[in-house]
Every structure is written in structure tokens, then in C-alpha cells.
């Protein structure tokens, strides 16, 4: 379902859930899984919850992780200074409070006093400073260095961390949510942190690593001394079950208590099982699909790699406007995704805090209107073959576009077929071809050797990353897929990057989304929804009421208890 070319990072979500655990009334053996029904009082604790998922972490070293599964484990085993809850709000974690100086250049974080690593060592500001510098200074770590790269870090006393920047930054909180705090006394001995497998994985989170076999399972035990309050269960097992049908069978047979992803076709089967609850919601890190146009201006064609063979008519906003009127997003969702999506509109997905511009109004699906736009703009079908001709001043024959999609996507072929059919009705032809992601990259950017591509992005808690791909300066780097370049947009981007007042920053980010919808370098067909399912007869208290759905998140695993 999800576009695989960017492995989306899981968004950090920790609520310092301080539920008191009381005394353990039952401690069933781990092999049996949950406690037997009937006898446990509603405050029962204990039990090991077994979760079936399709993948497995690629590394226990937080610097090395690329896969979502790895980040799920980091969230449970490590603490970060600031958390992001399932409703998209930044919440205190290791940092009880934080503030910025009046000039916007100095951030001060006050740490909790009772945090300890799993080996009993107290967690102090020295560990925070060490960790931030570790992630900042090792460029071979793929993702983490881009978060703390602007900071100089000081630790004036054991519970205070001071970060200074050269320019004000608008996304301080989001830069802290992946900053996993590792123990300095262990990691300072490591010569090459990138080659370090971190097999002991000593963190300070609510769960600690008990056993790990790559590609098979991860077993965590509850940290009974967790500073934020111990979980109610004894532990959690993440078992890799690669085949989706086998995962469904495992849930039905009671081999696992929860599955993190499942085939859409299995939903109705599971819903009919009285012991199983199916939950549908927005994923933690929403995938984003996009249909984008090659509109790179000739004068900005990358000198080194550029081919810039895009169809000239696509540079005409009226053509893109007509195409936008000829995409029925709801039908795409219903047919290609079996209903598991919400119509998209902005490059910033819904649920990214308040940054998604909810006031945007999409172009309606209206083929007559689309035809009219093309007629008015002077694109007429003069030779009667059903395809409109280019205008005389354009160096092209007719509106026939190359339309590519990643061949590793399950749903893209169907989507592209549907979109092509609508476009055909307004006199626009397509030549459709699926390409493997590497080949797609090589025609896409920064070569710009394509006309239209259906692809996608993963997402990040901060809108800055996705909005950045539409900057003029990213045309040469290859992150701009479209070649879109608008100085007005770039100026707003710079402005939001240094704006420390969240409300002002939100307004700028909203304005940027309006510009993108007006200029249409992208059509965003939909945002993914995710499906998870759990057994009602083994554990209760799964967190299903938040904006985001992630039952494998600490917010659920810290509070669930055996079903009584």
C-alpha cells in the first residue's frame, strides 16, 4: 500500500503515563501469553503481550535505523527530551520544561531528576549532551544528524541542557523527538559508533531489551523502575510474521494478541470474529502519494545531470488545472485502496499538528469544467483523433504525456490506469509505464527526464521537510521532483524556518500550502489509512481514541492490562 521509496520514520509518541501499577496480583508465565480470563480483578497486571508484524528492525543502533520497525523499538527502549503524542502535540518527556531566550538563539531544557538507565546509572544532562553530539557529529548515520545539526550543546548542571543556535529556529520541538538518549558511559568507549551493533541496548525507557534475534523477534521486558511509572504488563514480544495471511491466521489462532498491519481483504473476516477488534485510523507516520509534473524551467535545468525533456504543455498552469479537475480522489480511494484512505490536498498530510491547512478547498472532479479550461486555453483537437493538439507556439504535437509509477507499489498500477481513463475523456493521452524505484529515480530527479509521475513520500513530524522539496534550491540536489521554483514560496520557507512563535509559523506554513495548491506542481490523491487488529480476550486498554492509530506505541503498551 504505502510507497516504499522512503521508509517513513515513526513519529515519536510518549505520554508520561503515570498510572500506578500497585502490587502485582498475577504473573503468568511468558509462554502462556495473557492471563486466563475470569479471575483477574480489573487492576490486573502482568502478562506478556505478543505482537505480530511483517518486518523487523534493521538495527538496534538508533543512529543506523531506516525502517519503521526499528523506530518502534527505539521508542519503547529509549527516552527522548521531548515527545509527540498521538494527537500531534509536543509533550514533555525527559525535559520537564523548555524555553527559548528572547533573541530566539538559546534554548534551555530542564530535565526530570529521577531518570535512570536500565543498568541503574542515573541519566543526567551529560548523557543528553553526549547523545545529541553523537547524532550530530556522525555523518554516516542516515537520518539523525539532520535534527541536531544547528545546535551547540552545553550541560551547565546535571538537570539543565542549554542549546544555542546561530539563527532562530522554528521547529525546536520536532528536532528533539528522535534524539534518543544513550548512556555516555557505554557509548564513549565505542571507537566507531556506526559499526556498533548496540546488542545490549541500554536505554532509560519503559521497556528494556531482553532478547533479540534479527529477522525473528524482539523480546522486551517492562522496566519496573521506569521514572514515569512502570507499565502494567510484564513484557512485550514483537514477532516477525512475513506473510500477511499467516499474520491474520496467527491472530485468529491466538498465537499473537495484536497485529500491526494486515491485508485490506482480511478486514471483514476478522470483524466477524467476536474475540477480535479491528481498528482503522491514520498511521503514525502517514504515507503520502503524489502525482507530479515536470515543470522545471529551462534556465534552471541542472547543469550536471539535467536532461529536462518534460512536455512543454505541462508548464502551462491551465493544463495542470484541467488535469486536477479530472482526478476523482474518492473513487481512487474506494477502488484502488478498498476505501482505506482520505482524500489528499496538501503536501503536508493531515494530523501533522496544526500544520495541515484544513481551510484548503480542492478543485472539484468535473470533466466538463476540465474540458472547458483546455478549450479556453487554446488546446483544441483539430485532427479529430480524440487528443488535443499543442498550441502553435509550443514545441510539441499533442497532449500525450509519459506517465510513470513505481513498480513496487501494489496500488499504483490501478490508480494510474484510472487517472489515465479520466484524462483520456478530456482529450489527454498517456503512455503508462511502471519502473523500478531506482530507474524511476534516474528519470525523475535531478534529470527531469519524465512528464508525469505517480509516486510518494514518507513523512516527518515537522512540515519543513516535505515543504522543502518544492524549493528552487532543491532542483539541483534531486529532492525537488517537479522543478517548481517560486521566489515567493522560498521566501516564506525561510521565514517559517526561523519563526519561533508556533502560531505565526503555522500561518506561514498554511500560506505555503495555498500557493502549492494554486500553482499545482503536485496533485495529492490521498493520505493512507492504516488497519490494526487486537484480541479482546487477552489484554484491554489499547489506545484507540487518539487522532493517530499505533497500538504498538508506548502510549498503548504502557497502559494495557490483562483482560479480566
Amino acid at each position: 500500500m504505502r510507497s516504499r521509496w522512503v521508509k517513513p520514520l515513526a513519529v515519536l509518541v510518549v505520554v508520561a503515563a503515570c498510572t500506578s501499577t500497585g502490587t502485582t496480583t498475577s504473573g503468568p508465565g511468558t509462554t502462556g501469553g495473557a492471563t486466563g480470563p475470569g479471575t483477574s480483578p480489573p487492576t490486573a497486571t502482568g502478562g506478556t503481550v505478543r505482537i505480530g508484524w511483517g518486518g523487523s528492525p534493521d538495527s538496534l543502533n538508533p543512529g543506523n535505523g531506516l525502517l519503521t520497525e526499528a523506530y518502534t523499538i527505539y521508542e519503547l527502549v529509549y527516552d527522548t527530551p521531548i515527545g509527540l503524542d498521538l494527537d500531534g502535540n509536543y509533550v514533555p518527556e525527559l525535559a520537564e520544561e523548555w524555553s527559548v531566550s528572547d533573541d530566539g538563539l538559546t534554548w534551555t531544557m530542564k530535565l526530570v531528576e529521577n531518570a535512570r538507565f536500565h543498568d541503574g546509572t542515573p541519566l543526567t544532562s551529560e548523557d543528553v549532551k553526549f547523545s545529541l553530539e553523537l547524532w550530530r557529529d556522525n555523518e554516516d548515520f542516515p537520518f539523525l544528524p539532520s535534527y541536531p545539526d544547528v545546535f551547540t550543546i552545553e550541560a551547565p548542571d546535571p538537570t539543565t541542557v542549554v542549546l544555542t543556535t546561530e539563527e532562530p529556529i522554528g521547529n525546536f520541538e520536532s528536532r528533539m523527538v528522535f534524539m534518543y538518549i544513550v548512556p555516555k558511559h557505554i557509548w564513549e568507549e565505542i571507537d566507531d559508533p556506526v559499526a556498533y551493533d548496540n546488542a545490549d541496548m541500554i536505554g532509560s525507557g519503559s521497556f528494556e531489551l531482553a532478547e533479540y534475534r534479527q529477522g525473528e523477534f524482539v523480546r522486551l521486558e517492562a522496566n519496573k523502575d521506569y521514572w514515569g511509572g512502570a507499565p502494567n504488563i510484564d513484557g512485550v514480544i514483537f514477532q516477525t510474521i512475513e506473510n500477511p495471511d499467516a499474520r491474520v491466521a496467527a491472530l485468529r489462532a491466538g498465537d499473537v494478541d495484536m497485529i500491526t498491519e494486515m491485508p485490506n481483504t482480511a478486514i471483514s473476516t476478522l470483524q466477524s470474529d467476536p474475540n477480535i477488534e479491528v481498528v482503522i485510523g491514520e498511521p503514525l507516520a502517514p504515507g503520502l502519494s503524489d502525482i507530479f509534473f515536470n515543470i522545471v524551467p529551462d534556465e534552471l535545468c541542472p547543469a550536471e545531470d539535467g536532461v529536462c525533456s518534460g512536455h512543454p504543455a505541462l508548464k502551462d498552469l491551465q493544463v495542470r488545472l484541467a488535469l486536477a479537475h479530472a482526478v476523482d480522489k474518492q473513487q481512487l480511494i474506494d477502488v484502488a485502496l478498498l476505501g482505506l484512505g482520505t482524500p489528499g490536498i496538501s503536501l503536508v498530510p493531515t494530523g501533522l499538528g496544526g500544520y495541515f491547512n484544513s481551510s484548503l478547498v480542492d478543485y472539484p472532479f468535473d470533466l466538463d469544467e476540465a474540458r472547458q479550461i483546455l478549450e479556453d486555453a487554446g488546446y483544441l483537437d483539430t485532427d479529430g483523433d480524440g487528443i488535443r493538439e499543442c498550441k502553435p507556439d509550443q514545441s510539441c504535437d499533442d497532449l500525450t504525456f509519459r506517465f510513470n509509477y513505481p513498480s513496487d507499489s501494489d496500488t499504483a498500477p490501478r490508480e494510474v490506469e484510472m487517472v489515465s481513463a479520466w484524462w483520456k475523456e478530456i482529450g489527454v493521452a498517456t503512455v503508462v509505464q511502471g519502473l523500478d524505484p531506482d530507474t524511476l529515480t534516474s528519470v525523475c530527479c535531478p534529470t527531469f527526464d519524465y512528464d508525469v509521475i505517480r509516486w510518494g513520500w514518507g513523512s516527518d513530524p515537522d512540515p519543513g521537510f516535505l515543504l522543502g522539496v518544492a524549493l528552487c534550491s532543491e532542483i539541483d540536489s534531486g529532492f525537488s521532483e517537479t522543478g517548481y521554483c517560486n521566489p515567493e514560496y522560498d521566501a516564506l520557507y525561510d521565514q517559517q524556518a526561523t519563526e519561533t512563535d508556533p502560531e505565526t509559523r503555522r500561518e506561514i506554513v498554511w500560506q505555503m500550502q495555498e500557493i502549492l495548491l494554486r500553482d499545482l506542481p503536485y496533485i495529492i490523491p490521498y493520505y493512507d489509512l492504516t488497519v490494526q487488529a487486537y484480541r479482546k480476550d487477552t489484554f484491554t486498554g489499547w489506545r484507540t481514541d487518539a487522532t493517530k492509530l499505533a497500538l504498538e506505541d508506548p502510549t498503548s503498551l504502557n497502559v494495557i492490562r490483562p483482560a479480566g
Partner: protein
Amino acid sequence: MSRGRRRYVIQKVAFAALTVFVVITFNFLLFRVLPGDPAVGGLRDPRLSRETVEALQERFGLNDPVFINLEGGNPFESQYFAYLGALIRGDLGFSFAFRDQAVASLLGKALVNTLWLVLPAQIISIVLGLGLGLVAAYKRGTRVDFAALVFSLIMWSLPTFFLGIVLLFLGSAWLGLPTAGKITIGAIYTGFWDQALDILRHLFLPTLTLALVLLGEYMLIMRSSVVEVLSEDYILTAKAEGLPTGQIIRRHAFRNAMLPIVTLIALNLGFTVSGAIQIETVFSWPGLGGLTVRAVGQRDFPVLQGAFLLLAVSVVLANLIVELIYGWLDPRVREA
């Protein structure tokens, strides 16, 4: 060992060694003509800075010349010779995708798991397949033969993953067998037998699936091979001499019918290390097949090179063994 025999053996071993070397070189070049940047496994993300990509390429030595260093200096300072040198030391390098894992250790763990699954299945299916194939051939045209033929044809032609998923559903629903993995995670065993039983329970369904698929193939080949031999003149002669049936089959038919079977078994055993990809996926068995498939997706050259090397060596070894056994089974081969 006669001189002819010795020359035959030396020739075969030398040829096998040459084949392995060619495969190593071919593997190396094959992965380097693929498009895409292995340093980041085809990953595109705005957070991935140019500096990071360059640092990773430097770490993996991807900036060095591929085959021969023509840029001046030592011509052997290239990725290819670095790879050969490391190989001689038994070092298969570090995985690109699992940056903190050595390839040799990844492959080693997966190989052990694969052998656990494939060897028992092979042994069961060889013993049963040869026996049933022999019986079917001897009783050809009867109802026994017909039943055996239908059974083996179905098993051989069923898609492996389909048979696997059907057995998984039935086994977990009716017999309460585990659906995935090779042990009960986090189990506390009371003793050796407890643990052995747990592994056997996990092993049962995948082994059964693989054994059934292989059984069909062995039965069919064995049956047709024996049927062919049984129609030879010397069998008729043996019958005419009044030899007992058992003796005809054991001494005259079996050994001659074994020639194609030995080839098949040895080739199958050679491919053992590639793992039973489909079965490993259905039952989430952490073997070599799954590791290889994931490595392809992530452009994990070192793991792929290692896996292909392992596969090549074992196929070549298996072929070598077949040729040596042939020399013993069929004297005509080594005289030729």
C-alpha cells in the same frame, strides 16, 4: 585408485575450482551494473544530506575504482581486488542494510536455520519418494500405481506457497500448531525434551510442506526411471532365469534406475542453501531464502555476494559429488 580414475577426479576438482572463481567475478560485476546507490539502498529522503551519502559511500569503499585502478597508483587498489583479498581471509564484509552486522555472521545464522528445515525434509522425501516410486513402478498399471501417480502429480504441481498457507491454516486451527518462527519466544524450558518438542512443533508444518513438494518430484522420477529399466532385456532374462522378484529389483533394476535420481538429489541438495524461499516466507522461517530476497530489495551487495557465493560453492560441490558417484555407479562414465 587407478590412474584413469585419479586423472578423472583431479580434472573434475580443478574444473569445479575454476567455476567458483568465475562465479565470484561474475557476481561481483553483476551487482555493480545495477542502477541505484547501494550506500542508501535506493532511499530518497530530504533528511538524507549529500554529506551523509558521501560518508556512507566512503565507508563502504564505493568511491574506489570498480575493477582495476586506472587512475594512477597501484592498479590493484580497486573494489574487486579488495573483495578478493577479503574473501581469501574469509571476510565477507559488512552488510550495507544492517550496517552493524558482519555478512558472515548473518549468513551463518540463516544457513543453520535453513539446514534445520531443508535437510529433514530432503531425507524424508528421498526415502519415501524412492520407496513409493519403486513400488509404483513395479505395480505399474494397478490401482496402487494410479493412486501414487495422482498424488505425486498433484504435490509436484501445486504452488508451494499455496500448499504452505493451506497447511498453515489447517495446522493452526485443528492441531494448534504454531504459525510462525522456530521457537516459542520467551519460553522457559524445563528440560532438553521440552525444548526439542517446542522446536519440532514449529518445524512440523514447514518441513511437511517442503517434504510433500519434494516427495512428488522424487516419486515421479523414480517411477519412470524404474519403469524404463524394468522393460530392458536383461530384466526379462533375469525373470526367465527364475530369479526371485526381490533380487531382480535389488540387484538389477535399482542400481541402474538410480542414475537419474542421484543427479536430481545432488542438484536439489546443492540448492538447499538457497533456502526454500516460499516456505520460509509463509512460515516466517529465518533462513537464507528470506535473507536473500530482502537483500535484493535493499541492494545489499555484500550479503548478496555472500549468499550467491555460498550457493555457487554448494551447487558446484554437489555437481562434483554427482560426477564422482557416477564414476562409481557407472564405470562407462570414468572410462570415457
